[in-house]
């Protein structure tokens, strides 16, 4: 499978601080890639380097198979981006903002501009307020307008930095549906976020950044694969321990973790011995557990040297 975003040994040094410390990203065609990391872990700097806004100290970036920032003029028209919150000209309408942005670079035909603007406004649910000045928009509406700007040229790759910031729960779920819809249509999505739940619900691959280093990069399915244990929900944990002696890995109230990757087999043993069972499930680690295990403390914490 071909790669859409590749970085090799990417480093960004600000004075003595290394914001990004040698990361090797690999985002493949058709991925919904979740780029996770605490605030200050270097996510935004990395995103800006992908788009050629910040120039790397060392290492290289390939976007859609071409070297950035050199090939920016060819590559970036095929990329839609939402970088650290939306930004628009407040004295202009939403539609005028999109039209100006479209006219500011290559790859957006003037003939189809009006139609494309109307389409993306409808797509993000702003069809009714496109002619109103952005100054009068709510935070959520601005976020939607930012997303509309990213979709204007039907990009092959969407780079989204915290796209659900400022949205209410309905808005978040709408954006999620929109992204999944685009993904089904063949768009690769690179989603940078510190919201684990958002990434867990959307993404097929995950990269975890911790203090400038990529500490984890894998398929979501691998990360949250069954651990080979079964979780038993029972009102009588001590009787489970008696029946399955030696196989109990841990017990926490009515929740007992038992070695064995076949819940049916565990169930048969327990029911055969007359132990009441309320529920059984394969144990899977949550993304949160995986991320916490891989990353250290929050990057906001600054310890004394």
């Amino acid at each position, binding site marked *: 499978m071909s790669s859409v975003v590749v970085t090799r040994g990417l480093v960004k040094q600000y004075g003595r601080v290394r914001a990004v410390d040698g990361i090797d990203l690999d985002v493949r065609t058709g991925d919904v890639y979740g780029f996770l990391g605490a605030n200050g872990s270097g996510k935004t700097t990395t995103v*800006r380097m992908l*788009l*050629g*806004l*910040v*120039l790397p100290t060392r290492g290289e970036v390939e976007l859609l198979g071409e070297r950035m920032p050199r090939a*920016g*003029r060819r590559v*970036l*028209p095929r*990329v839609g*981006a939402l*970088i*650290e*919150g*939306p*930004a*628009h*000209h*407040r*004295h*202009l309408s939403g539609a005028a903002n999109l039209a*100006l*942005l479209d*006219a*500011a*670079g*290559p790859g957006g035909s003037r003939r189809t501009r009006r139609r494309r603007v109307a389409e993306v406004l409808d797509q993000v649910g702003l069809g009714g307020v496109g002619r109103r000045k952005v100054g009068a928009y709510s935070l959520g509406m601005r976020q939607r307008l930012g997303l509309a*700007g990213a979709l204007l040229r039907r990009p092959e790759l969407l780079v989204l930095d915290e796209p659900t910031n400022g949205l209410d729960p309905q808005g978040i779920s709408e954006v999620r549906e929109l992204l999944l819809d685009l993904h089904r249509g063949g768009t690769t999505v690179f989603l940078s976020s510190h919201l684990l739940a958002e990434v867990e619900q959307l993404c097929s691959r995950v990269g975890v950044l911790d203090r400038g280093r990529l500490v984890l990069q894998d398929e979501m399915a691998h990360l949250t694969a069954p651990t080979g244990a079964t979780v038993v929900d029972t009102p009588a944990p001590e009787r489970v321990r008696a029946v399955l002696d030696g196989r109990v890995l841990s017990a926490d109230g009515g929740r007992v973790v038992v070695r064995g990757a076949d819940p049916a087999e565990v169930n048969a043993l327990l029911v055969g011995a007359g132990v009441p069972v309320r529920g059984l499930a394969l144990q899977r680690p949550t993304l949160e557990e995986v991320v916490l295990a891989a990353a250290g403390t929050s990057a906001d914490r600054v310890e004394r040297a």
Partner: protein
Amino acid sequence: MIGVELRKTFGRPRTWVTIAVLNALPVLVAVLLRLTDLAPRPGEGPPFLSAVLTNGQLYPLAALAIVLPLFLPIAVAVVSGDAVAGEAQAGTLRYLLARPAGRTRLLVAKLVAVLAFVVVTVVVVAAVGYLVGTLLFDARPVAGGTSVSGTSLTPEELAVRTLMAIGYVAVSMLGVAAFGLFFSTLTDSPLAAALGALAVLVTSSLLFTLDAASPIAPYLPTRYWLAFVDLFRDPVLWRDVVRGLALQGVYVGVLLAAAWANFTTKDVTS
């Protein structure tokens, strides 16, 4: 890209408010002169003002001379300082560059937009000056005007020299715009950029009056600003006009090169 920047500059109310305010002062001066008939004596006050009571056609020049020392440079500094830093502060710079607008193209487009603002502003000030001058004072289109040297000029000569003066003032303001644009690439605060450009002009004006600074006086950016008066001598005294153009040319060239070098290699973190 250039079209986009022109639309942005002239599509915002602020630009037109600035130009309107800029015209308020010469209009006010004209009304006061008309009401009181008290023109400054020749050689005092802004150039040409003493002559307008007898020939309203000189008022465009008087208007330019009135706004040139302070108002016009402030307006140009604000607009040019806003060029890149304003986009950075609003956050739109990152979207423009990721669009991709291309850094050099964006800078060129910004420069052209600022240039257009300078030209439009100077022309509007002159046009409003002409309108006010011919409405309020005696216009003598047939007789032409009188040169600063005292000889008379035909209406054609006067028109040509007025156009040259407008051009000269526009070039002088280009120097201000170059300072503004350069500072605009250094900072993310449009206010800081505009103030930086103004600080340069204030320093320059101050040093110009200081005898101790006379060795560097020929190189001060404001040194030859009023040389457009020389265009109305008979014969035209070209020396300072040419030096003024050359000096502005050097400033514009160096500052734009510096702006370009800085902007194309800078990390955009706004």
